[in-house]
């Protein structure tokens, strides 16, 4: 939503869908909100997860999410996951 650029509404809709999709594929594992980045055509999703699932299941969900989102949005999607032992508390002062 920069001044003079179109496509803000489509990007907002895509963001909302992506957040819901990731909340569904990793149920109860998301430690923090997903960070979405777009470089040209590439879509990079950076997510922090808790350590409830074993690694091979996480890799399966990673590949599944990447291929499914790539076929939905017709653009290369890269999902970067990082596991965190506990949720990081934010304090607003």
């Amino acid at each position, binding site marked *: 939503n*920069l*001044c*003079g*650029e179109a496509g803000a509404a489509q990007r907002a809709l895509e963001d909302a869908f992506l957040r819901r999709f990731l909340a569904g594929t990793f149920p109860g594992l998301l430690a923090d909100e997903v960070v979405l980045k*777009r*470089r*040209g055509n590439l879509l990079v999703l950076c997510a922090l997860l808790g350590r409830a699932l074993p690694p091979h299941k996480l890799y399966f969900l990673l590949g599944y999410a990447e291929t499914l989102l790539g076929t939905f949005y017709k653009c290369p999607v890269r999902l970067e996951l990082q596991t965190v032992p506990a949720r990081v508390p934010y304090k607003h002062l």
Partner: protein
Amino acid sequence: MAAGWLRRLCQGSAFPVSYASRIMQKQYFLPSSNLMGARLAGSYGDTQEPKTNPLVSISDEPETLYKRLSILVKGHDKAVLDSYEYFAVLAAKELGISVEKVDKPPKTIERFTLLKSVHIYKKHRVQYEMRTHYMCLELKYLTSSTAAVYLEYVQRNLPEGVAMEVKKTKIEKIPEHIQKPVWDTLPQVEETKVKS
């Protein structure tokens, strides 16, 4: 044969089949085809031919020249734009492109006022604003290939989401029919007009 063996191997493990099998198939097919080609043709052909890089193309056409290349970058965050400006100016200097000027137009703020509550309370509102910072980079005297290389490099390293790029180029060319004034080349037409 190789593909079937690979698929059976992959399905035994817990890994996703589509990911690994496609990559491994690509890797395994190449050595078999190279060996087959070598046996049939012999290894003499490659060593005697000069090695040409397929990515580099040499053409004899005269290159179009650009008098000025202006790149406008927009973003929400001024610090990101400043770092990108440093990067773009450094890249231009390394390639030998002369930078005319780096302009920073003032930011534009788009504000709107909404009602704070869902139902009533008209007197209590919330204001949002979106700030867009600009940075204009102007480069002098480029050839088309230089411009293509520089723009591709700079655009591939554009920061995510924040900066957008708008490019304007000015081309200098003089068409042949304008080079000489008309009244010098056609005197005969004027004489006939005067007579009639």
